[in-house]
């Protein structure tokens, strides 16, 4: 079994183990062990990857494996990773692991909960290792569907509505994606040769311009919807608000990253001309999303809604950076994906913990929590600071890469767009500080004078996330190095 396939196999084995285990403690343990192994594996993968790179292996994708699956269609189970996927896998495994810890106290159907969570994770892992469009699409949908159950069964509030909306919108998007995929597939023989789903083989082909113009929007929107692309972002506030903690974490932290990753890895890579043709058009929507998400977040009262809109804003930056099509901005986009992954995961974890104690997520109903639950409060402040782009945390590094990269564009339009996007940092500060001020500071609300202290599993989960947020923030050159080197072939194809 190769090192990458294990990333799909281990979750499946964990699921099997869960099916046959009995008792809530066993479920927790099995899930934690399984995902712990997964995390260790992802560190190992990172190590091995760096070793290979060190040894001078300059292939675009490492650990590649290609198994013919459906011969008549030339569908392969083709996998491989570059630096970006390795980091994304790392992100995913950490968030799943912390998510497992955060969901330690799930009492209603715990087995099913962990199974769904891990199935979702396996889809995400599969997505990140695939280089074949078909395989990638399969894993994408595997990642989306468990969401319905996770939100629907263990959610709060209008969970059925939210689950239904989220699933339908994402599946609708994947329907667009599918049309785009087929369009690419049937144009992949434009230079002669066989039809193929392998993105690297397709990228060598010059897909006719007309086809690129036609199909690029399908692929772009198809991926962008899961990246909360304005105006198709409305599944995300409702979805996040209703989802249980771990699911919000995983969803905002990882699943929404599939969008940017897919656009980078697939849409822009295989259809560079289409990307150039449509970039300005989509850029306008992306920047609207950035600003709009931030502004809409100001007015929200529910913590999760605030973060959901904040995600719209921050992931808008990812899309914007991708559309800017230069190396630095792309590096920023990838860093932002990672950074936002950790930060929102932390945010949602904390919101879950606070909600578990106060049973409300309405900001105005809480006050002075910093006095009662100081560690959680401090962590929340850290998350907030990281989110508003404080130097030393990951958000700053990512945003600055995006802004600086985007601003180097020679076209004035792009620079104006960038400035509009930059202005969102002010608005971000407003909504973050508003929450911190209302919820954590001020006089303590009487009914919350006594709240339980932070528990060990909560500490484990959140500390790991904070650690990574600061690691990115303080050593950006290290992460940036891995990313830059992986971006190279992709950006070359585009320019």
């Amino acid at each position, binding site marked *: 079994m190769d090192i990458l396939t294990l990333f799909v196999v281990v979750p499946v084995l964990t699921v099997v183990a869960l099916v046959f285990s009995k008792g809530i403690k066993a479920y927790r343990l099995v899930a934690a062990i399984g995902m712990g192994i997964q995390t260790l594996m992802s560190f190992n993968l990172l190590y091995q990857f760096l070793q290979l790179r060190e040894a001078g292996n300059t292939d675009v994708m490492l650990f590649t494996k290609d198994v013919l699956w459906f*011969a*008549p269609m030339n569908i392969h189970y083709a996998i491989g990773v570059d630096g970006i996927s390795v980091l994304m896998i790392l992100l995913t495994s950490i968030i799943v692991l912390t998510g497992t810890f955060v969901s330690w106290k799930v009492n209603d159907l715990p087995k099913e909960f962990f199974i769904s969570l891990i199935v979702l994770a396996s889809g995400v892992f599969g997505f990140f290792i695939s280089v074949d469009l078909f395989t990638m699409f*399969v894993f994408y949908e595997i990642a989306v569907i468990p969401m319905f159950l996770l939100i*629907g069964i263990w959610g709060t509030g209008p*969970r059925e509505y939210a689950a239904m909306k989220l699933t*339908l919108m994402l*599946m609708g998007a994947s329907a667009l994606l599918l*049309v785009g995929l087929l369009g690419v597939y*049937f144009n992949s023989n434009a230079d002669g040769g066989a039809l193929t789903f392998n993105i690297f083989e397709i990228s060598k082909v010059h897909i006719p311009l007309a086809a690129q113009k036609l199909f690029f929007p399908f692929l772009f929107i198809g991926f962008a919807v899961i990246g909360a692309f304005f105006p198709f972002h409305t599944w995300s506030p409702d979805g996040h608000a209703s989802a249980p903690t771990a699911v919000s974490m995983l969803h905002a932290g990882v699943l929404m990253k599939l969008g940017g990753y897919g656009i980078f890895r697939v849409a822009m890579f295989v259809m560079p001309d289409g990307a150039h043709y449509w970039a300005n058009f989509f850029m306008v929507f992306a920047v609207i999303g950035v600003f709009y998400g931030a502004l809409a977040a100001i007015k929200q009262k529910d913590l999760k809604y605030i973060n959901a809109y904040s995600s719209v804003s921050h992931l808008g930056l990812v899309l914007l950076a991708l559309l800017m099509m230069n190396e630095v901005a792309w590096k920023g986009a990838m860093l932002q994906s990672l950074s936002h992954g950790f930060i929102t995961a932390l945010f949602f974890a904390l919101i879950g913990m606070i909600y578990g104690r106060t049973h409300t997520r309405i900001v105005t109903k809480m006050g002075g929590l910093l006095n009662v639950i100081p560690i959680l409060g401090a962590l929340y402040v850290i998350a907030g600071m990281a989110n508003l782009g404080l130097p030393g945390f990951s958000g700053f590094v990512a945003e600055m890469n995006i802004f600086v990269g985007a601003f180097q564009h020679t076209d004035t339009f792009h620079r104006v767009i960038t400035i509009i996007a930059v202005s969102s940092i002010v608005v971000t500060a407003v909504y973050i500080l508003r929450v911190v001020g209302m919820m954590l500071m001020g006089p303590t609300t009487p009914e919350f004078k006594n709240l339980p202290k932070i528990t060990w599993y909560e500490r484990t989960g959140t500390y790991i996330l904070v650690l990574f947020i600061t690691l990115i923030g303080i050593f950006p050159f290290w992460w940036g190095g891995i990313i830059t080197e992986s971006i190279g072939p992709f950006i070359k194809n585009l320019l």
Partner: protein
Amino acid sequence: MNWNTMLLMRQEIVLTIVILVLLLADVFVTKDKKTVNYIAIGLFAIHTLIGFLPLDAGSLFGDSFRTSPLIFGFKNVLNVGVLLIIMQSASWLNSKMLQYQKIGEFYALIFSSLLGMYFMISAGNFLMLYLGLELSTLPVAALAAYDIHSRKSSEAGIKLILSAALSSGVLLFGVSILYAANGSMYFANIHDNLGHSYLTIMGLVMFFSGLAFKISLVPFHFWTADVYEGAPTPVSNYLSVISKASAVFILMFVLFITLRELKDIWTPMLYIVSVLTMFIGNFFALRQQNLKRFLAFSSVAQAGFIMMGMLAANDLAVSTVVYFLAIYIFSNIGAFGVVQAVSIASGKENIDDYNGLYRTNPMMSLAIMIALFSLAGVPPIAGFFGKFFLYTSAASQGYYALVFIAVVNVTISLYYYLLVVRAAFLRNSETPIPYFRSDLLTRIGIIIVMIGLFFLGLYSPFYDYIQEVSKIVGI
């Protein structure tokens, strides 16, 4: 002609023997009628197994009856489907029909109908096609009205028989016109002699509407929902998969080979019908409460997807459609199987009755979820692969707009499939369906279906084989 060539009809002959044995058994087994179930299922299982023995291509009766690895393989798929259906129907027969001593007939009828399907899909001329069609339809009408004490069942029977008679009348009229246009009934002779004329168009459309009735394409589908609802569940199940699949199969062959000359007419026709079918089927399915009716409309919509796949009119279309049909058979049998098991145990057939099903009957809920997800086309369940290949087939000829319409419809369909999942998993009920344990055969049947639903998709040699034998057809 010698006996060796008659072996080409091996499956038909064996099935006929099975039917005869059953009729005799019904007479001779008087004490415990339940054993007839086991006899029937056992015999049919043997028949199914025999079917997997290799067989050559060839034709009989002056080309009236043809067989090829594809046709033969498809019969095997039908066999497996029927086997699964009768495994699930045994408990229904035991619980409802035992008192009326009406068990053997059921199997005889269902096997006769299957025999009709055999002849239909092996047909080499319109006469054989017609006979097979009627032989497959008439027993089903009898089966639809099988529950003689249920008014709904009788209504379903009369609706089916009258509509079927009308449709076969139209089909015959169409065939007669095609006959007038070229002077032959034999598929092999027709495709050279057809020109475009008012006459051939009329013949084509009327012939098509006759088969479209069986496939339940819009606007020829209206009987579907009423009959599915009224007929006993095993019969609805049978109608929705076996009957539909074989009609699709023969329609595909007639269009692709025999009426190839008229391709520029029947492709737009399929296009229109496909779009209509998907939309109408989905719109009606959206608001159904009765699960059988719900599945009826869902199967209407699925037929639209199949038509989309057929548009490409090449060997890719053949292989993808056959592949989809095989998967569709499994998915629908799974869904109907659970509905039937629940219906026998509690008498409840509405979606709202399923509220909280997971908490009392987790396995059943899982089974229906997987089956419905397969119908909706969610990976890694086989239905996804089937649908994806249908899209591929349509897109290969540039029908991107149609693919787009189809994926929009998939999203709509996902909504109503999720409604059922929502009821079973998300909701809680004051009075959920209590825990029940269905009989062994049903459970085995459902388990086989579930395994099949994963296996058929992920295990690619299955599709490779279909692709291989479809190539030999030489379209």
